[in-house]
């Protein structure tokens, strides 16, 4: 089975790209889909209805969604393999731009919206740097100059990432993504899959619901206004 991991900020067009993959590859592969989100998600129901494929979702609630995604990924692979899927697509919530949910033995795809502005790739460095492919969506809406500068900005962050510009609603340009999926290797040994990098994943006390302001009230990785380095305090 092949594993695709989609990341990217909300509204970038992750699901639109997934739809195109399903449209084009459903005839040749049996595809399963997992959506990870925080409180609500509808993608699993929509895709199940539209393409009649097995789908699931996980809500992370108070926990960081990428953290949740990594915790459930091994189970998800087992679920999809039991179903006999040829491809498992995992779509992240895309809330935290500091996260890199990509793993070994998978294809990491970051979806970026060209509408986000030419500086947006610079702000999402960690999410782009370890991806294999950067799909830039909504390119039909922006000027030629911005299209070119956007590509350069992605290159600055990730010199080797494969950049694919698309209007995902029409699926233009996605042939290169489909080619990459057709040519990628299958999972060799699911138990050996690890995260590609050291992501800044954390379940912080604020995420967990502590509302007090000031580092004095929190634990884990902390920062003070004057302190140059992070400090760690356990509880």
């Amino acid at each position, binding site marked *: 089975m092949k594993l695709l991991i989609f990341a990217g900020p909300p509204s970038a067009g992750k699901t639109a790209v997934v739809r195109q993959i399903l449209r084009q590859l459903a005839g040749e592969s049996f595809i399963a889909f997992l959506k990870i989100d925080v409180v609500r998600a509808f993608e699993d129901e929509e895709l199940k209805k539209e393409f009649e494929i097995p789908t699931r979702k996980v809500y992370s609630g108070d926990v960081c969604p990428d953290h949740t995604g990594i915790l459930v990924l091994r189970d998800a692979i087992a679920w999809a393999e039991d179903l006999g899927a040829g491809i498992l697509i995992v779509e992240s919530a895309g809330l935290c731009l500091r996260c890199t949910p990509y793993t070994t033995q998978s294809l990491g795809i970051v979806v970026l919206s060209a509408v986000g502005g030419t500086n947006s790739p610079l702000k999402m460095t960690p999410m782009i740097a370890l991806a294999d492919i950067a799909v830039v969506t909504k390119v039909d809406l922006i000027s*030629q100059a911005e299209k070119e500068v956007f590509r350069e900005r992605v290159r600055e962050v990730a010199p080797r990432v494969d950049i694919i510009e698309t209007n995902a609603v029409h699926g233009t340009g996605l042939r290169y993504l489909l080619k990459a999926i057709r040519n990628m290797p299958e999972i060799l040994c699911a138990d050996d899959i690890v995260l590609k990098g050291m992501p800044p994943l954390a379940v912080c006390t604020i995420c967990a619901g502590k509302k007090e302001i000031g580092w004095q009230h929190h634990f884990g990785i902390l920062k003070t206004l004057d302190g140059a380095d992070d400090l760690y305090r356990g509880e």
Partner: protein
Amino acid sequence: MEHFAITTITILPGRAKDGRSESFKEIALRAGDMISIVGPTGSGKTAFINDIEVFASGDTVTGRTVLVNGEVPPDEMVRDPAKKPIALITQNTKCLADLTVLEFLEMHVKARRIADNSRMAETIRLANEFTGEKIAGTMRMTSLSGGQTRSLLIADAITVSSAPIILLDEVESGGIFKENVISSLKKNNKAVIFVTHDPVLALLSDRRIVMRNGAVEKILEPNGCETKILGQISGMDRVLSDMRERIRAGELLTDNGGPVP
């Protein structure tokens, strides 16, 4: 950036929405050609333009193939927007960044590594030939009207991108001197394909592709037989745009605004 010499773009047939094959053999596009695309909404006009923009190779919904100089174009030409010989401008194309006109052009000139500093002023000058609402370098891109934006982007495609092929998707609406645009594109020897609902623009092209149900239904080559009608509707169009300008200027149209042919 120089593009390698493109002599011909060839479009090979695909299929209609009902799966039937298109009946044309091939459509060839050379420098200086003007092709218009007409047809009802949903007939596949934009899909046709998109096929060219992505250099389709049987892998789009239409199944068409687009060749450059008779061959499948190299990947780099298809994928890198700075190396692509095609500029596509649609009604939706905008500059999103909050920059002045001059900063926007500077950004593009810099991205293209063009050393010639006169290119920005030249672009603004050309854009002003396309629109009656004057564009200045100090204006903010986000405050330009639709007509000003499209005029500037077409001028940018000619002077900065130097794209030999220009695709225009219904850019005629409002605030743009379409005949100036067409004559400038002709003068610069561009190959132009435009989707249009405008009778004057449709008749200004050398060939007219008629779309229906996702397929090319026919290709009309008027060969001058529409010249007389073109003269008439150009006249009507001038009367209408003159009236439009007067209405915008706050006049009461009590006379007939000039001779109606």
